[in-house]
């Protein structure tokens, strides 16, 4: 018995040595075999899912039996192209994503600037915690709290009436959706801008001042261009997150966005997965264009 184990042990050791020698002789083999598990997971979970999504967009649903017919056709895309409703919904979604991104840039830049360049280390830590803290609470709880704030008998109107101001009627409008999106995605804008601003060496600012530039000129010609990649990186987050979210419009809005149409086609209306897949290619295409533009702006170096 012991002999058998010893023999087997010797054999495995020899195999191990041969293997390590092979790895040593061919470094690409070592790197390759290390990369196989993560790359495999990436291809299987991520790329394959996208491929299936894209392929199924060319199938159709038999509405009578509820089964998917695997024959290639462009019916879904034809419906999307010809029906103005879907154009309007896509336009509304892209417009909202742009508005939210723009709002978040305006809100996040001064805050990130203060954190990166003006605040002391302790205040900076406190502000970091404040920015990140909402991310620790449930996203749904935060949206529901906005519902309570904005409703007719809600907190905001209570304050307004205390101050003698007229009531607001924002609940269940696109304005409410815009406010809530801008709020929930704000940390995703602050952090990349902060990272970009913090990376600017103080000597650049000093050099600019030595050359006679005033504060405003320095900001415009030194700080802003160097912070731009951070802004673009943040906008990738806010833009894509807004483009894909469907829960916020359901809870605080009353119009449809791309995500809502997809959701209704998956659960709710008809389980029309091919149609949902076809519509899902719209935000994918928009995002692809956006990322190409962002790459040109150098956003990927700031990530």
């Amino acid at each position, binding site marked *: 018995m012991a002999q058998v184990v010893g023999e087997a042990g010797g054999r495995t050791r020899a195999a191990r040595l041969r293997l390590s020698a092979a790895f040593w002789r061919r470094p690409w083999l070592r790197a390759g075999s290390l990369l196989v598990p993560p790359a495999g997971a990436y291809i299987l979970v991520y790329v394959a899912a996208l491929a299936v999504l894209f392929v199924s967009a060319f199938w159709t649903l038999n509405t009578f039996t509820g089964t998917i017919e695997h024959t290639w056709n462009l019916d879904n895309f034809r419906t999307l192209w010809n029906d103005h409703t879907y154009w309007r919904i896509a336009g509304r979604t892209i417009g909202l994503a742009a508005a939210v991104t723009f709002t978040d840039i305006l809100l996040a830049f001064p805050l990130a600037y203060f954190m990166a360049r003006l605040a002391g280390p302790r205040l900076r830590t406190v502000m970091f915690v404040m920015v990140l803290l909402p991310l620790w609470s449930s996203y749904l709880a935060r949206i529901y709290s906005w519902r309570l704030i904005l*409703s007719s008998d*809600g907190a905001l109107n209570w304050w307004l009436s205390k101050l003698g101001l007229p009531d607001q009627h924002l609940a*269940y409008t696109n304005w409410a959706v815009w406010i809530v999106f801008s709020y929930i995605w704000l940390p995703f804008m602050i952090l990349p801008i902060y990272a970009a601003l913090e990376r600017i060496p103080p000597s650049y600012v000093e050099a600019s001042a030595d050359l006679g530039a005033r504060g405003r000129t320095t900001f415009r010609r030194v700080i802003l261009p160097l912070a731009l990649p951070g802004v673009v990186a943040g906008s990738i987050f806010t833009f894509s997150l807004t483009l894909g979210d469907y829960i916020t419009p359901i809870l605080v809005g009353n119009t449809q966005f791309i995500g809502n*149409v997809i959701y209704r086609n998956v659960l709710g*209306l008809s389980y029309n997965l091919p149609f949902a897949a076809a519509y899902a290619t719209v935000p994918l295409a928009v995002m692809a264009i956006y990322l190409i533009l962002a790459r040109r702006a150098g956003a990927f170096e700031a990530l």
Partner: protein
Amino acid sequence: MTKHHHRVAGWAAAALAVGALAFVAAGCGGSSNKSSSGTTSASNLPTSIGQGEGKLSLVAWEGYTQPQWVKPFEQQTGCQVTSKYAGSSDEMVTLMRQGGSQYDMVSASGDASLRLIQGKNVQAVNPALIPDFKNFIPALKAPPHNTVDGVHYGISLQWGPNTLLYNTSKVTPAPSSWEAIYDPKYKGQITVPDNPIQIADAALYLSKTQPGLGITDPYELTQKQFDAAVSLMKQQRPLLKKYWALASDEIDLFKNGDAAIGASWPYQTNTLKADKVPVKDMIPTEGATGWADTWMLSSKSKHPNCAYQWMKWVSTPKVQAQQAIYFGETPANTKACPIMDSLSPGSCEQYHANAPASYFDSIKFWKTPSADCGNGKTDCIDYSKWQQAWTEIKG
């Protein structure tokens, strides 16, 4: 010795593999037999209810699986109930079609039940195993929405009208017509269900206000009638505060003062009244659409005995009365009336449990619109068009 052992082990493994294959094949054959018999004939129906399987998973309307009657059921039968609320018939159909054996039963309304039967998602049941079935009102023993060619695909439960709900302190004088939910006077205070079947409500209103369109059945609409209903709903759209998706959404809207008037179910009225919100509901002069619900058994159910126990339980007069009062609907079981009155005096009359058959006939019950208009013509608008129009109406 070892060699011999190996050979024995090999043979054993081969035998096991063959056995497993045979088992799988038998399993496949068995299941396909079952599904085909379950949908075409009633010959294989159970003749008695066996031992419960310990679990029961339900897809239900909000308010249909209250602890009040679920707890005693669990104690008596040992079947632990889990339930998932669905907000629309479309959602119910999707859940049953995609859920596989995840869900055992669904409380399907008339606009979902036929779709589930045609899609072979539900199986035939034996009403002889439900003792209270004989006490049901005649109209709900074998109604066309759950009985096809004499085969029962479920046991009727409760029925009721879709009502007009309003806040009594904000809407004065009290409305009497469905016109109120199309009235610019209430702009920004109206809410209606986020459900394509709502087009039928518009059609019902038009059938009375524009007799020229010749609408007789709000679910069987020609292109012209359908277009008129859709255009009415498009005019209504800017007046709306919100399309509500779940009953609890509408309750929130009325509670937070966001909505003052809307299309509703009696359940919302009861819940809001319990919360001291000044609301009232009514059936407008044009009449109302309504629902008649059926507990249906999934064709892939793994807990059929618990499911039969459940059908038996929810048909008993006491549970029928409890649910009728809780939700504000009418029980199928005629024996529920006295118990309703003992639980809440006057409730039998309030929820029409003793109303004559003509009341039942006055409600336009939800059904799935199909191209077949019922008069030999096939130029009606089918449900997939209703769904498309709904996306268009919502914009």
